[in-house]
């Protein structure tokens, strides 16, 4: 069984990568989790996960006659992590369509796939994670631009047959005020507010230390918020046998 989530926001720096790894680690308590850096143009998951010096990344897989996916999978922090390289040449050589096959292959052997998604909706490779995913986790901040970009992401997702799993408010500076913002935004976003994550020094330090937040500061309030998000996320299982087919032909969404 597998369900694939795109962790997306449409806006830069909201905490998609931080959230992907934090949610992934929290979900790994219960599920077999695979995390993929699908932000192939501006990859940085590798820096968050201490994988910046590995040999094989997603870029090497997304080319004609490239490396097998397995070579780009690293067991880290209780998850399978697929980092992506950061070179422009690697991005230019990569064929975005091949991400389909990567997801299809990895889907056979895991419970949950998290796709760390780009901060834009402006190209085919940027929207592909949203197209491929079953549902999207929208990472928001309680600001007008972040909310308006989050709305856009959700509309794109729905247009492409991908539902909303829920929202995460990140970098929250005022926990009281965010409650009413979350309340009001529930009218527009499907799914529950999975977490409100405080603006946290631990999150910044974790990034600098090259570790996911839950590995670097498991006791931090922000880490606890992500564990709560994992608890509130109702992971649905897909049909076990046709999983690979589902992703290979992900252009045609399953009837839901």
């Amino acid at each position, binding site marked *: 069984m597998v369900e694939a989530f795109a962790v997306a926001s449409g806006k830069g720096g909201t905490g998609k990568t931080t959230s992907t790894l934090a949610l992934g680690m929290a979900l790994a308590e219960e599920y077999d989790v695979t995390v993929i850096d699908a932000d192939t143009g501006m990859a940085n998951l590798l820096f968050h996960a201490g994988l910046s010096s590995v040999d094989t990344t997603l870029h090497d897989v997304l080319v004609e006659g490239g490396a097998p996916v397995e070579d780009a999978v690293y067991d880290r922090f209780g998850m399978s992590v697929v980092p992506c390289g950061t070179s422009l040449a690697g991005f230019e050589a990569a064929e975005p369509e091949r991400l389909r096959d990567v997801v299809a292959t990895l889907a056979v052997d895991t419970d949950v796939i998290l796709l760390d998604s780009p901060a834009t909706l402006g190209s085919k490779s940027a929207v592909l994670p949203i197209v491929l995913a079953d549902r999207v986790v929208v990472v928001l901040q309680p*600001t007008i*631009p972040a909310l308006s970009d989050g*709305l856009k992401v*959700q509309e794109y997702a*729905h247009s492409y*047959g991908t539902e909303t799993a829920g929202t995460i408010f990140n970098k929250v500076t005022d926990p009281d005020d965010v409650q*009413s913002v979350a309340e009001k*935004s529930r009218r527009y976003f499907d799914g529950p507010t999975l977490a409100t994550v405080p603006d946290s020094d631990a999150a910044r330090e974790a990034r600098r230390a090259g570790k996911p937040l839950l590995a670097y500061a498991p006791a931090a309030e922000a880490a606890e918020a992500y564990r709560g998000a994992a608890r509130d996320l109702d992971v649905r299982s897909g049909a076990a046998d046709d999983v690979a087919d589902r992703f290979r032909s992900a252009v045609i969404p399953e009837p839901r």
Partner: protein
Amino acid sequence: MKLPSGRLVHSRVVDDPGSALAAALDRELTGYAVLEPQETLLLAADARGVLTFSEGVPVLAYHTETDRGGPPALADLAVPGPYRLELVALSDAVLTDLHDTPALRVPPGMPAERLAGDHDLAARTRASAPDDRVRESPGGDADSDEPAQESAVEAFLEDEGKIEAIREQAREEARERASEWGLDDVCE
């Protein structure tokens, strides 16, 4: 708000209002910026946001369509980009007259916080503001007890028409691009 004519110093399309604020701050603009949303689906064609600046620091905010000023104008201005941005330089004297409109005033860092959600830009702006403006309270159009950034966010979320416009525009865009990208068959 009648805008005096001045010298056009900068005109281009920007993705978000933050770039407009940064452009004004970096060139220490004394004058005003006009922001015109490019994709005005469901918005009036002449909807424009105006911000005035003194040496790069925002002073007034006004929105032509809603005719609101001060912090509410910032909420009105917050629509998805891109925008056409024009920066116009004015002489100090002309601007001083214009600035004598307390109802339209915004504290220096507020536009960066509310339009761009950019704390760093807000901090840089406050650092450039004269001391007597740093603690300035918002203009008279604002609720007197509306200090928090969140209240602009809440006003935004209560504007169902605007949110529907954003969503409609995104759906349209998603469909158009799907065919550009050969993803037609994904569309529901």
